[in-house]
């Protein structure tokens, strides 16, 4: 395979169970193309070790104590951009998988997988592939499709608003009350209130809070950005 001609894949192991870490270290050290450069037993330590060792690949248990594996993944992905992250999970859980990918992991494998499969997955993730258990692919794609439909639907609802109403919604999403909306738009609070009522009606929501949540949950802040500029 020519693996011996290349630099080994520098690996960080993060798992709350020392026995599992030790077993993984022993297994990986039998492979000429892996080098374990750090270990961590909790989330905070995983982040610190990743920043210190700057590994090529981090194997992170999703259930790490003291800052879970998802949070650690998110921080490592941001602070150590060259490090690819493979999540280890006890179960094939769709929500956990999606949270892992959203946090920046590009691989997901269950701890019940054969060791050969785990090593193969580690190599593929390091090689740039996004790797998830094949049997979870359908559910993940279904979730992506559902999210896109929700986003498209939200954009359609947003499209019903006039420019002024979008300005009002942007301020609502920032937590502004009628006075806080009126002042930057140079309108009266009563006019602001009328605009708010129209926004709620067109979006099909029942409260200002619901309107603000609509913006945030559908990732529409960018769509509204600049309308108050």
């Amino acid at each position, binding site marked *: 395979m020519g693996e011996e001609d290349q630099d080994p894949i520098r690996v960080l192991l993060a798992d709350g169970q020392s026995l599992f870490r030790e077993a993984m270290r022993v297994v990986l050290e039998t492979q000429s193309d892996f080098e374990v450069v750090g270990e961590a037993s909790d989330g905070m330590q995983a982040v610190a070790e990743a920043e210190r060792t700057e590994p090529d690949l981090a194997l992170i248990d999703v259930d790490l104590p003291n800052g879970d594996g998802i949070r650690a993944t998110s921080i490592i992905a941001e602070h150590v951009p060259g490090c690819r992250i493979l999540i280890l999970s006890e179960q094939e859980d769709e929500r956990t998988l999606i949270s892992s990918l959203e946090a920046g992991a590009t691989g997901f494998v269950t701890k019940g997988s054969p060791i050969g499969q785990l090593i193969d997955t580690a190599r593929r993730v390091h090689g740039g592939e996004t790797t998830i258990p094949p049997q979870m692919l359908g559910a993940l794609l279904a979730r*992506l499709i559902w999210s896109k439909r929700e986003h498209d639907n939200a954009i359609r609802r947003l499209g019903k608003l006039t420019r002024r109403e979008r300005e009002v919604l942007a301020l609502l999403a920032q937590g502004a009350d009628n006075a806080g909306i009126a002042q930057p738009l140079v309108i009266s609070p009563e006019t602001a209130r009328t605009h708010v009522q129209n926004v709620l009606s067109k979006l099909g929501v029942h409260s200002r809070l619901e309107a603000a949540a609509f913006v945030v949950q559908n990732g529409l802040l960018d769509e509204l950005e600049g309308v108050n500029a």
Partner: protein
Amino acid sequence: MSEAKTVRQDRPTRNPEVWLRQAGSENVAYDPARETVHVLNATAVAIWVLCDGETAPKEMIEAICQLSGLPFEVVEEDVSRILGEFEEAGIISWNG
């Protein structure tokens, strides 16, 4: 874009009589009416799951592109081929 010419606009639905079972590392679809067995790879299983009568092939292709980073044309070819094979095997039908 070539997609409008080649991607079907209607939506595939799984034949409810067909079972999907995992046998070792392989997935098989068994059609009791025809007494046929079809071995499906991981992508085919995922597409099978998405044949719910509501999801259009274009949505399947876009989601796979999003996940894999592969170009639309490449994924489109695979998805169209797999759906064509499902149709030929009689394990999906199409609704408008």
